[in-house]
């Protein structure tokens, strides 16, 4: 590689990471130290390109060509025009909102947060939550090797904190809403979440990323989720940023003995999005179900990389990943399952199903199994197909138009994932959004 390329390669990361001391100015010593270490890792790591196995199908060169600045604090007019539609009635007063990674008190409402549940932001707490935060923050995400996690750690302006105390069952869903706003100059947002679900607790979390305004944005999000012994957690994640947005997110989930984690990830937005999910089954008897749905069109690219790591015995994991790809869009799914040596009696199932709605649509779906234990059950399958012409004919024979038939079948494909969402209002909203997008693309076809 020539010297010129070398310099270019580092420009993008260096330009961003050098801002870290400003971001850290008010930080406690432990956090400053954390950021300094992360900034050091950013300098040592390189910006990924397609020669990296993990980025083979997802070309980040368009991102690298742009000049981003860390987003400054910005106050939105509260409540702005479209805000109502972003609120879920079930979580109307259990909501934290962040704008470009900064906490937005004027849009947040935590009145209904029950005792035993902390829904807060790192910067507002003084030293109250420092112990929990300093114990866990950046201890689960792979800051040492994964450059975007390191970049986020050096730059996040604030963090959403959700702590559920031992034995607490939180009936109300909790909503973390991250809004990115497009400005004249391209801005980088670095949202950060730390979620700790205490022993034998239960909760439902909605983590949502949306965009406001037209224009280029870059969201680089990191979430760390710890599910302690016997705790149950339901996690729905929705990404619906603008069509010019870049969205890179890393989510690391750590499961202790007998913990249950159920997650549903829905990707609708962004020009280029990458969601990396890692679930580590640390203790025996853990269960996870991680489902995904991507519905993309135009020139969108949506990439999901997951690693489900069975590091202990008697675990169970199920995964259903679905992509609906229209026009010239491109979906990537890489689902890795690891069963470590001595992690006996695990049961891991993965299904990847993909629907291509146009001749130009593309999908790269790849299971990756690394099974080192011998007494395990492991099943996986991947399909790529179009809508079934015989099903379309059957529906037309019952009076449905070609468009109505195609929409119904496309929706049905998505429904298998959407219908699992535990929040009625979110499910209803997604049904409408999906029908609307499916409809829009069949009309322009």
């Amino acid at each position: 590689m020539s010297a010129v390329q070398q310099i270019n390669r580092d420009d993008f990361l260096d330009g961003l990471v050098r801002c870290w001391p400003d971001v850290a100015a008010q930080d406690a010593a432990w956090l400053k130290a954390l950021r300094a270490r992360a900034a050091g890792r950013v300098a040592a790591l390189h910006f990924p390109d397609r020669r990296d196995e993990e980025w083979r199908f997802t070309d980040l060169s368009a991102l690298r060509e742009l000049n981003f600045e860390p987003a400054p604090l910005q106050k939105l007019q509260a409540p702005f025009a479209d805000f109502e539609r972003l609120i879920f009635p079930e979580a109307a007063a259990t909501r934290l909102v962040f704008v470009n990674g900064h906490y937005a008190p004027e849009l947040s409402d935590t009145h209904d947060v029950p005792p035993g549940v902390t829904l807060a932001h790192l910067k507002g707490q003084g030293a109250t939550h420092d112990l929990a935060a300093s114990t866990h923050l950046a201890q689960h995400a792979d800051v040492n090797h994964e450059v975007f996690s390191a970049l986020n750690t050096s730059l996040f302006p604030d963090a959403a904190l959700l702590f559920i105390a031992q034995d607490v069952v939180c009936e109300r869903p909790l909503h973390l809403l991250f809004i990115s706003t497009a400005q004249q100059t391209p801005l980088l947002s670095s949202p950060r979440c730390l979620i700790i679900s205490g022993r034998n607790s239960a909760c439902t979390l909605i983590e949502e990323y949306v965009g406001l305004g037209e224009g280029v944005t870059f969201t680089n999000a990191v979430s760390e989720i710890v599910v302690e012994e016997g705790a149950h957690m339901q996690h729905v994640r929705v990404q619906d940023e603008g069509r010019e947005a870049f969205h890179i997110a890393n989510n690391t989930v750590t499961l202790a003995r007998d913990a249950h984690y159920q997650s549903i990830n829905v990707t609708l937005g962004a020009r280029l999005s990458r969601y990396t999910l890692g679930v580590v089954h640390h203790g025996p008897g853990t269960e996870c179900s991680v489902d995904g749905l991507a519905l993309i069109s135009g020139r969108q690219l949506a990439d999901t990389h997951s690693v489900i790591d069975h590091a202990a015995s008697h675990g169970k994991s199920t995964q259903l990943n679905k992509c609906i790809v229209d026009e010239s869009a491109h979906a990537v799914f890489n689902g890795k399952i690891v069963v470590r040596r001595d992690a006996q009696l695990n049961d891991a199932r993965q299904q990847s199903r993909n629907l291509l709605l146009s001749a130009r649509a593309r999908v790269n779906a790849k299971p990756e199994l690394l099974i080192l234990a011998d007494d395990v059950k492991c099943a996986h399958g991947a399909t790529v197909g179009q809508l079934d012409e015989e099903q379309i004919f059957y529906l037309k024979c019952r009076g449905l138009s070609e468009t109505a038939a195609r929409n119904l079948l496309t929706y049905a494909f998505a429904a298998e994932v959407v219908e699992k969402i535990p929040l009625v209002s979110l499910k209803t909203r997604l049904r409408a959004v999906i029908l609307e997008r499916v409809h829009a693309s069949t009309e322009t076809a």
Partner: protein
Amino acid sequence: MGKILLEVRNLHATVAGVEILKGFDLTVRAGEVHAIMGPNGSGKSTFSKLLAGHPAYTVTGGEVLYQGENLLALSAEERSRAGVFLAFQYPVEIPGVSNASFLRLAYNTVQKQRGGEELDPLEFDDLVREKLKLVEMEASFLERSVNEGFSGGEKKRNEILQMALLEPTLAVLDETDSGLDIDALRIVAGGVNKLLNPGNAVILVTHYQRLLNYITPQFVHVMEDGRIVKTGGKELALELEERGYDWVREEQAARQLA
């Protein structure tokens, strides 16, 4: 005599470049029941699906008039809305679409076209429960995905349920009796009989005379190699059951020699 609903004249059709229908003629009037019998592969399903508008079949000659209009100019959904109904030999499974929502969508689409009243889910529920009785189906079938995991008999009953909801003018039942046990056969046949009226007509495609013990046809046609080679009354079905199709072939060969 009822007015003519369907007139098929010298119909020729190909699938994947192979000619399957080779001069098919049939006239059906309101109030009539026709049975079409014939050996495997003679083209019965081809004719049925072509009538419903399946895109795989290309008409290469002849014409099909439905209520005096060119049926072939209409798309599958237009034919359905105009009152043509095909009960599929192999009903299609549609995972992820509940039977109830599918039936309501179909019902409302057709109602709208015919200027009838569209029903909301609650109103429709009342109607569909009434119709379920006709085919002795449990209401639990409404919650399941369309035909998914249904037994053969359940699928066929679901077809007749759709027929009951859409009230077609011309129904083609393609082997709706195949694979049914005697109880299911009685139920399905009973349902069809209740739907018959002087204004509509049914074409029964079948291999078995036993269906005709329950639904009495005025005409029985024998189909062979893409055309109707013999037409008789309901006693012809008994004769076919007893003697098979060979004698029809021989009779036809003799006629061609003469």
